[in-house]
Structures are given as C-alpha cells and as structure tokens.
C-alpha cells in the first residue's frame, strides 16, 4: 500500500468540502463549487469547481437494476466514480510535492491525474514549469511536459542544491 500517492483510487473515502454541491441525477454527475477542498490520506486538492462523474447509470436506473437481482435490502455494486474534473486555481499537494495548474482530471480507470494549463511543480526548493503534468497514481511517477507553442517546448526548471535559496524566485 504505497500511501505516498496522491488521491489513490482505493476504497478509502475522499472527504470533500465546498460552498455548494449540485447533483444532476440524469447526467450521473455532481458538481462542487466554491472553495472546494478534497482530501484523501496525505493528499489535498483545492480548486474552484470539481465535477464528479459516476457510472452505473443514474441513481434511479442503478437502483432499479439493483433491486431486480435481489428483492430490496440494497446490495449490488452501486455507483462507481469514473472521473473527477477540477477547474480553476487547481492546487494538488502531497507530503513532498505541490503542483498547481488551471485544470486537473482524475481518471479512475487508468488511475492517473492530468494537470494542465500553467503547470508549476515544486518539490522542496526545486520548481519545474510546464503545460501538462501526468501522475500515475499506482507508481507515483509523474511526467511533466511543456508544449508551449511559442517557447521551445522545453520544461523549464530551477534546481537548487539543498540548502541554498532558489535564485530567481
């Protein structure tokens, strides 16, 4: 159980707080808006809005299917969350890393998080800039890419040998 990974999609519940939540049942979607903070173990996600997509049909189809195969009493696998979409001042912090961007998509089936927009990844004194950060939640490995049209498409980074304050900060 590698608990260093951000938002691992195990069965551990995620606590989410927000100013508002809108559940749109026939779209099998729930939208959190306003100071959204999602926490799971050591990982925290902050964003302006967070969309949660769940599979297994809408609440009603799911329930109808469930109760056909057993007479009441719940059971069946309920609804699975398939994807989270965070939008607006996205900040993902784990024990050692902090990444910010404009949008983040958590894909449960591939167990990956993709952060896009103006991505800044910092770990201790080291700061990396790019346009897309893909984190594999199973392995914890992340890949930072920069495909800025004008720029040289290169990831810019500032590495500080430990102990010295970063120069251009």
């Amino acid at each position, binding site marked *: 159980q590698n608990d260093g990974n951000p938002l691992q*999609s*195990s*069965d*551990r*519940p*995620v*606590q*989410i*707080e*927000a*100013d*508002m*939540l*809108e*559940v*749109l*049942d*026939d779209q099998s979607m*729930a939208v*959190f808006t306003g100071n959204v903070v999602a926490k*799971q173990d050591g990982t925290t996600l902050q964003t302006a809005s967070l969309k*949660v997509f*769940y599979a*297994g049909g809408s*609440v*009603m189809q*799911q*329930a*109808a*299917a*469930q*109760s*056909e195969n057993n*007479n*009441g*009493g*719940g*059971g*069946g*696998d*309920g*609804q*699975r*969350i398939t994807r989270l979409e965070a939008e607006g001042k996205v900040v993902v912090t784990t024990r050692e890393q902090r990444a910010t961007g404009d949008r983040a998509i958590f894909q*449960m089936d591939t167990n990956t998080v993709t952060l896009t927009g103006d991505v800044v990844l910092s770990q201790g004194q080291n700061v990396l800039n790019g346009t897309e950060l893909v984190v594999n939640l199973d392995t914890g490995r992340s890949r930072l890419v920069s495909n800025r049209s004008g720029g040289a498409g290169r990831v810019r980074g500032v590495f500080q040998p430990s102990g010295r304050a970063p120069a251009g900060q």
Partner: protein
Amino acid sequence: MESIATSSGMRDVPHDTAAVRHSTWQRAQRHSRRVRRLRVVLPVLGLLLALGLFVSFQSIPSPIGDVELSSIGVEGDTVTMEAPKLTGYGEEGLNYAVSADRAQQNLSSPNVVRLQGIDGRLDEEGGRWTALRAAEGTLDTDAETLRLDNSIELTTNDGKRATLQSADIDFSRRTVSSEEPVELEMDVGRVAAGSIEVSEGGKRIVLRGNVKVDMRMNGSLENALGTPE
C-alpha cells in the same frame, strides 16, 4: 375516542365512519384536476412529493385507493380523523400508502390539514420503494404544498437515506426545499449541508452551506457501511 360524526353543519360527512363511501370522493375528484397532473418521479426525496396524494375531505387524488379511518370526531369546527390511511395508485400505477396518527381540519379553512405522526411508503418501478416518517406536517390542498416539521426521515430499500429538520414541498412545482441542516446517504456518498433544494422531481438536488461529503471512490454504500464485498 369513538364518536359518530353528526351531519348537521357538516357537509354530508357520512355516518358510516368505518369506510368512507366512494361517491363522496368522486365529488371531490373534480376539485383536484391539478393534483392529478402530479407526475411522481422518485429520487431519494421523492416520497415527500407523493404526500400530496394524502387524503383530505376536499381534494382527493384519483384514481382513489382504499381509505380507512378509525374514527372521525367533530368538536366545534374542528374535524379530527384518527389514524387516517390512504392507499392507492399514483399517476404511473405506482402504489402508495400514506398514514398518520391523526389528521385535523378546521372547517373555517378546510384546505389546511394538520397531520401528526406521518408514515408513508411509495413503491416505484423495479421493486424499489421509498419510506418516509415525519413528526408533524401541514398540508394545504389549495396551495398544493406540504410543510413537514421536526425530524423527517426518508429511506429507500437500496440504501439511501435523507434526514431533515423541516421540509417545504410544493407539489405543483414538484420541488422540496429546506433551509435547515440536511444529511443524505446516497450512492455518491454521505452528504451533510446547511440547506437543500430538490427540483425537477428529484433530478436536480442543490445543497448549500458548508457542504461536507464523505465520498467512496468506488464501491457502493454497502462498502462504506462495512458489509463485505
């Protein structure tokens, strides 16, 4: 308290209090054209909408089910129905049973029915049902609204639950709202919030005021409650 309703001054309240004559309700049906338009779609809080089908002398939903009353008492201009129970069929042939310990109506404003000890259950397609309990309520058959007070609980047989302090139900607009704290257990997870608004017959639920959710990333409510996979 066993008492026979006297017909003087009462608009032909039938003497036979054990079962109310079908014809009496027939006449009342015409008053309730709009109620019949009520389409019942059952989300977690759907049963609250169904309560609009609860019986009163004036506006009876149709088609009518069986109406049982243990006794009717008249004191001054207040009519008290003991243990009224209405069972029957809603619009899409879904059956429902709504009962109360007591229902009181004042003849000066017959459209308002005070209810105590409300118990309701509505069966839906696919063998799902929703049950409701509420301590008190006020049904207004003209405004087609129902206000429920202090401790309302709604459960469904597929593990969903809603606990509210109060709820305002508008049957013509098919909305349920409450300005007081709410707790929900849904497939999305366990939800707590300061207020709730259910509209479009339950398809849209908006929760406001430090919303807190314990969400399962996968698996269903049962896992959260610890029943083995």
